[in-house]
């Protein structure tokens, strides 16, 4: 394999990991509470902003990380208690409208507080450079860190869900909502905890995205739709599905945008090929989702039997 293909695969993996961090929380909330939360991207943004601001003020990236996680989790739990809790019994339409309202509120609120200029986030010390992973292929060490963190989170979630009491309730909640209720578990507390966990992961994604792309208003919505695609491809409520779907979407998207314009350029004029190639590669993941849903309407790893 050429260095280019390896690098593009790594890029796809890293992008997939980002999507996984967002999708894991979303799929749990979706699967257990049955809530479509469009404002999940706002939690991503809150995490990124808190991390950037604290890192800037304190000069310590790792302090920023903690702040980002705390801010996202806290915001998530407040949102759950104040708003979403009232929407569990409603249909999807009401949830869409309410969380759409939340997006507007968060985006404009952040604009009012911190302005429109994207924020500068430094890389954490020791991760500013790149590592030569193959002769002639240096790769940014921070992106490797993202991959590592994501895989660790995946392992941690696996352990949490398979081997802890909360995990047992989460699993049961995704398949037999009424049974968990019947067990006498404090469902409200469980929901708040799960929502906080999802928000924490979204915040983690935001913190990790900060130094790579921009910390700016609206950053959550750009990635939100793809996150939904991941959740649906993977199967709603399934963390394993979210991981698999995220990697599939990340690698597909990256490889398509990396190679399709090049292939097209061999058969047509350069700028036409680029325009069409960009369109085709953007369409790719949606085609993927449509095909998956037509073949397996409940996604690849459906949680509900």
């Amino acid at each position, binding site marked *: 394999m050429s260095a280019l293909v390896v690098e593009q695969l790594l890029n796809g993996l890293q992008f997939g990991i980002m999507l996984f961090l967002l999708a894991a929380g979303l799929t749990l909330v*979706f699967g257990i509470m049955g809530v*479509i939360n469009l404002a999940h991207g706002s939690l991503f943004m809150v995490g990124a902003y808190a991390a950037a601001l604290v890192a800037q003020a304190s000069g310590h990236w790792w302090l920023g990380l903690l702040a980002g996680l705390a801010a996202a989790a806290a915001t998530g739990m407040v949102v759950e208690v104040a*708003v979403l809790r*009232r*929407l569990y019994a*409603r249909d*999807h*339409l*009401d949830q*869409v*409208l*309410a969380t*759409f*309202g*939340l*997006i*507007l*509120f*968060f*985006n*404009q*609120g952040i*604009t*009012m507080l911190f302005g429109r200029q994207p924020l500068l986030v430094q890389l954490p010390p020791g991760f500013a450079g790149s590592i030569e992973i193959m002769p002639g292929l240096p790769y940014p060490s921070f992106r490797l860190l993202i991959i590592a963190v994501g895989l660790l989170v995946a392992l941690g979630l696996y352990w949490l869900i398979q081997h802890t009491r909360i995990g047992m309730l989460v699993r049961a909640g995704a398949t037999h909502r009424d049974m968990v209720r019947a067990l006498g578990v404090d469902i409200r507390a469980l929901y708040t905890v799960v929502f906080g966990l999802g928000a924490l992961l979204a915040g983690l994604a935001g913190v990790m995205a900060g130094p790579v792309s921009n910390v700016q208003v609206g950053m959550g919505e750009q990635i939100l*739709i793809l996150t*939904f*695609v991941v959740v*649906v491809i993977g199967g*709603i409520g399934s963390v394993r599905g979210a991981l698999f779907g995220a990697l599939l979407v990340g690698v597909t998207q990256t490889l398509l945008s990396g190679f399709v314009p090049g292939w097209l350029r061999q058969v047509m004029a350069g*700028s*036409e090929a680029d*325009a*069409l190639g*960009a*369109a*085709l590669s*953007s*369409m790719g993941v*949606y*085609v993927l*989702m*449509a095909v998956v*849903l*037509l073949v397996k*309407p*409940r*996604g690849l790893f459906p949680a509900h039997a």
Partner: protein
Amino acid sequence: MRNALPLAVLLAGAIALPWAAEALGQPATIGLATRILCLGIAAASLNLILGHGGMVSFGHALYYGLGAYTVGILWEHFRLGEPIFGVIPGSNELLVTLPIAMLVAGVAAAVIGALSLRTSGVQFIMITLAFAQMGFFLFVGLKAYGGDDGLLVRRRNLVPGLDLRQPDQLYWLCLGFLVAWLFLQWRIVGSRFGRVLEGIRQNERRMAAIGIATYRYKLAGFVIAGMGCGLAGALTANELRFVSPDLMAWQKSGEIMVMVILGGVGTLLGPVVGAAALVGMEYVLGGITENWQFFLGPILLAVVLWAPGGIMGLLGRGARRG
């Protein structure tokens, strides 16, 4: 008809709006109102499948955009004098472009609906979104029709006997189409077909058990709604004199859906009221503060939490009390 009087008053008010706007020195309000009418048609047609058929399509802006692009592309070829694919001539006649726009949107809805309706629930929401996104990126990539930048429609379409360059005439035309569409939809909702759609919304399993092949009725509803959006898009293209992939972005689908919910799901006038409320709030709040979205967000939230039937629900409650 119990509702005849308020409806007549409302219609008379709508017809008189251009004169009022001129008299008050607010001529641009006519353009704003025209946009509301167009979005009202789009929202009403989404309501047919969403409110009456229980199909939550999150990709309805696609048909809106396709309707608009049909007008734009026909104009572009008319302007250049080059037939499409060397066969189909361009056109700037509304009586030609409008039916074609509805046809294009209807065909697209038939194909997409035929595939999407194999799923249901959240999967249906997402698959309709997926198809809309494909359309969006397709038009972003179509350089011949402006790509990301969109396509300019320098002159509005021609209609015998009307001059659409006059904002008030365009307004009345759109008002006519809105009233016609609402009337048509009112008949459909009350018809045997409408009863079947309504039954599917309430309990699809029951409908199958009385011998109704639900798939084809849902598909028919989906196509009708798509054509309504195509009509709305075609009128919008004339109003804006500009089309761009923006018109079929997922945000637009969300916006149309918000209008339906805000106004009142499953009601005749709700979607139009919702369109007026959303566009109006954008305009009014936007005039008061740069940070208008900061206030719009909680307003939407409040509607969901405390006014589940939307604005029509609130009005109904008020009427019952009064």
